[in-house]
């Protein structure tokens, strides 16, 4: 508690002793985590260990039963929601909107008029490898492209904290690894504070500065592993293998 005054300056995001229960199930218990500015933290854990709950707590979509969640110094849900850009596992693009309008949706939700929102989204399509696809409906896009549109929608409002819930979980493994490389490159260019939830250990090592390992339900942080590898990271290198071994060990595998 005595660290609270200095916390906002150094830690854009922190969870302190967070517990979340649903009826008879305890999803998370006594979780402590904190992220530095522009740090990428990956949370890995077995299915059902409360990873998604963790993200929704941070995103201000749920409240903890005990403990506190602080985002940019704010603990109330509305302020947390305003500080975080949340990207769910599935792209959830609206089938009746073209790619450009889908990307613009996040801005529209903040009250930006539709045409202005489209105008702001347009220049980013080139950078996201989506040039010429502005007018395409989601059904006409490949899985990887749809995910990139979803990313664009997430990044566009410029919120300081990114919350990614298995962002590539629905993609085939080739598309997934190319999207991971693409995201690593994008974050290198334009760093953000990222909380990434995944059950893919390699994905966590490719992208994260630090990895927190959760136990099976109820989720607790059982290990935090610093990833000191140079970027771009080579999944075939011996050092990568070492980190992977340590993470798998912490997972009990």
């Amino acid at each position: 508690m005595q660290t609270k005054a200095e916390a906002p300056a150094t830690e854009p995001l922190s969870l302190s002793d967070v517990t979340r229960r649903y009826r008879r199930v305890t999803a998370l218990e006594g979780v402590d985590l904190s992220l530095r500015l522009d740090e990428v933290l990956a949370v890995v854990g077995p299915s059902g260990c409360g990873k998604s709950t963790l993200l929704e707590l941070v995103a201000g979509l749920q409240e903890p039963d005990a403990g506190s969640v602080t985002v940019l110094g704010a603990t109330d849900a509305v302020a947390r929601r305003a500080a975080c850009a949340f990207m769910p596992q599935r792209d959830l693009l609206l089938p009746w909107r073209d790619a450009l309008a889908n990307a613009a949706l996040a801005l529209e939700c903040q009250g930006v008029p539709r045409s202005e929102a489209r105008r702001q989204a347009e220049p980013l399509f080139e950078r996201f490898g989506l040039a010429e696809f502005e007018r395409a409906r989601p059904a006409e896009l490949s899985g990887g492209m749809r995910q990139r549109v979803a990313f664009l929608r997430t990044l566009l409002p410029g919120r300081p904290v990114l919350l990614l819930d298995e962002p590539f979980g629905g993609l085939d493994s080739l598309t997934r690894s190319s999207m991971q490389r693409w995201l690593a490159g994008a974050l290198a260019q334009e760093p953000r504070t990222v909380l990434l939830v995944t059950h893919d250990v390699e994905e966590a090592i490719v992208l994260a500065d630090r990895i927190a390992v959760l136990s099976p339900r109820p989720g607790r942080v059982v290990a935090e592993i610093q990833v000191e590898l140079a970027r771009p990271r080579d999944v075939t290198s011996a050092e990568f293998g070492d980190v992977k071994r340590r993470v798998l060990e912490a997972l009990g595998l």
Partner: protein
Amino acid sequence: MRYALAALLLALFVLAWQGVASLHSVDDLTLASPVETFDALRDDWSLLWDNALVTLVEVLLGLAIATVAGVAFGVAMHLFRPLRNAAYPLLVASQAIPVVVLAPLFVLAFDYGIGPKLAIVALICFFPITVNLLDGLRSVEPELLKLMRSMGASRLRTLRSVELPSALPFLFSGLKVAATVSVIGAVFGEWAGAEEGLGRLVLLGNNQLQTPRVYAGIVLLTLMAVALFVLVVLAERVACPWNRKEQSV
């Protein structure tokens, strides 16, 4: 191919109809043959057409009232849970009322004019429109609603950008049902008391033993309902182009 098969079945049906009507044991007063019906359509065309227009106006206005009221009521019920809980049983009950019995009372209340017909058409069309719209508004995935909330969307923004577009195909399903039953509603309305309209013409024809004219009226009423259905399907294609795969007709 689809259309060819449908046309073939229709042709077979007309042939069978002609065959049964030509049997000696079948009374001409009970069943007019397709040929007799066609003759009646030709000979009484202006009479039939004038009355068909009257019925068409009743149907279209009644449908319009039901659509406006159904959408307004459906959205209101969706936005206000207490209203939904309170009004849903009434909504179901409104559909369970035997309209045939209600029609004469409407005529008593509204006189012989267009009023009772509109009331009956609107009453039976309101239900499929409202219920389908409500289902559509609730069909949005919880994940998507969560995403909208995380992006800071207001209730109205979510309604406008997500729930209403999601509900549009459902609304059109309701309209398809409404379009086909609307004509039946207009006929009941006219039977309870009217000075003109196809329903009244069919009833009169029945009393006066003009069987071919009755059949001609029935054919026109059926065509009207089918045409309305097709119009709704076409409107749906224009309004929901992303939903193409599930189209029929």
